[in-house]
């Protein structure tokens, strides 16, 4: 009975301590102490990882190893060649477009799509391999063959973050080809709505939606007449102030590997 009481007492004391340490760790109060402790444990974990991985790897035949390395190098060459062909085709298609002028575009590769799990979630932002060193600025539009993809929200020297138009934090003005003005709002999972359209304006399923243009004096922002998507359904209630339509982009965001940044208009 005494032991059981001791266990209860020790449990509550240690739990309290753990919760306190967890709280301080979360708030960054113990940052220095934790980094010292981490460097100490890393000193042990690295050699143990090497040791165990060597222990579980089987000895390889020298000839097989050489062939495997040669195979990897050949695969890399083929992949590079295929990438160059695709890039060339993509550049060719892009520069055939009339709007916006090709001179103002900067080609970029998608190098990251945080929290995107193929088949489970849709991408909501991209990280691209151009940054401030390439004259990319926050607010620049990102496009693919006249389709608006998103907007630059953060930049570092060599990388930039693009918030896609389907991201719930994305908002910008747009209109249908027929002239109904509204606001495009991202809803996540590849969905968007064109909201705040006057009831008197005509909005129908199948209407194409384009940007109205939101350029700053330095050329940053969203150019006009970029394609946003197509109306798939209309929600019109006579008692409401506005009508809205569900919007679908013509671009499959999960398969994009290359985009173009509009770095300014001439």
């Amino acid at each position, binding site marked *: 009975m005494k*032991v059981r009481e001791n*266990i209860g007492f020790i449990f509550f004391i240690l739990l309290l301590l*753990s919760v306190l*340490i*967890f709280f301080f*760790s979360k708030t960054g109060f113990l940052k220095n102490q934790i980094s010292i402790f981490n460097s*100490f*444990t890393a000193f042990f974990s690295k050699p*143990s990882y090497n040791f*165990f991985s060597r222990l579980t790897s089987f000895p390889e035949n020298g000839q097989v190893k050489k062939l495997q390395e040669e195979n990897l190098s050949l695969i890399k060459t083929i992949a590079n060649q295929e990438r160059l062909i695709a890039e060339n085709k993509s550049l060719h298609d892009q520069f055939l477009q009339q709007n916006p002028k090709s001179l103002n575009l900067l080609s970029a590769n998608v190098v990251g799509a945080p929290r995107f799990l193929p088949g489970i979630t849709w991408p909501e932002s991209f990280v691209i391999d151009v940054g401030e060193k390439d004259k990319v600025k926050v607010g620049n539009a990102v496009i693919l063959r006249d389709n608006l993809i998103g907007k630059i929200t953060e930049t570092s020297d060599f990388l930039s973050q693009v918030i896609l138009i389907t991201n719930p934090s994305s908002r910008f003005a747009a209109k249908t080809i027929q002239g109904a003005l509204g606001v495009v709002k991202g809803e996540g999972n590849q969905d968007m709505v064109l909201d705040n359209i006057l009831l008197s304006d005509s909005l129908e399923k199948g209407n194409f939606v384009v940007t109205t243009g939101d350029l700053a004096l330095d050329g940053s922002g969203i150019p006009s007449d970029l394609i946003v998507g197509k109306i798939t359904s209309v929600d019109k209630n006579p008692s409401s102030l506005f009508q809205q339509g569900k919007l679908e982009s013509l671009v499959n965001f999960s398969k994009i590997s290359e985009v173009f940044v509009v770095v300014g208009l001439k």
Partner: protein
Amino acid sequence: MIFLSIIFLLVIILEGSFISIPFALLFLLFLVLKNREPWVFVLAFFSGFLLDSLYLRSFGATSIFFLIFLFAVTLYEKKFEIENLSFVIIASFIGTFFYFSLFGNFFVIQKALFTSLIVLLPYKFLIKPRANMN
């Protein structure tokens, strides 16, 4: 005791650097089944910090989980015979399931099932002889 500590330290380093099976959790489960004494909780407290450091988690998270899990096991001692195989398997499955779920692992059920199967071996050598003696 020193031998036990060295083994436990090795188990933590192995789990933290190479294999994603919660060896430390299983080790602590067997310790609490064999020795229901306060020092097991102290060991759980410190081992949690080591694992947090190796996994770069928020400090204290693993300790909180270990302590609650072990305390829950000791509470069940009042109601059930905890030194039998079915309890060990169920406890290790539930413990592993919540451990993996809370710390953001994939294939949680498969891993929990696998872990609850591998406890059979240590059970045979550590718990069963004592149960037979009683």
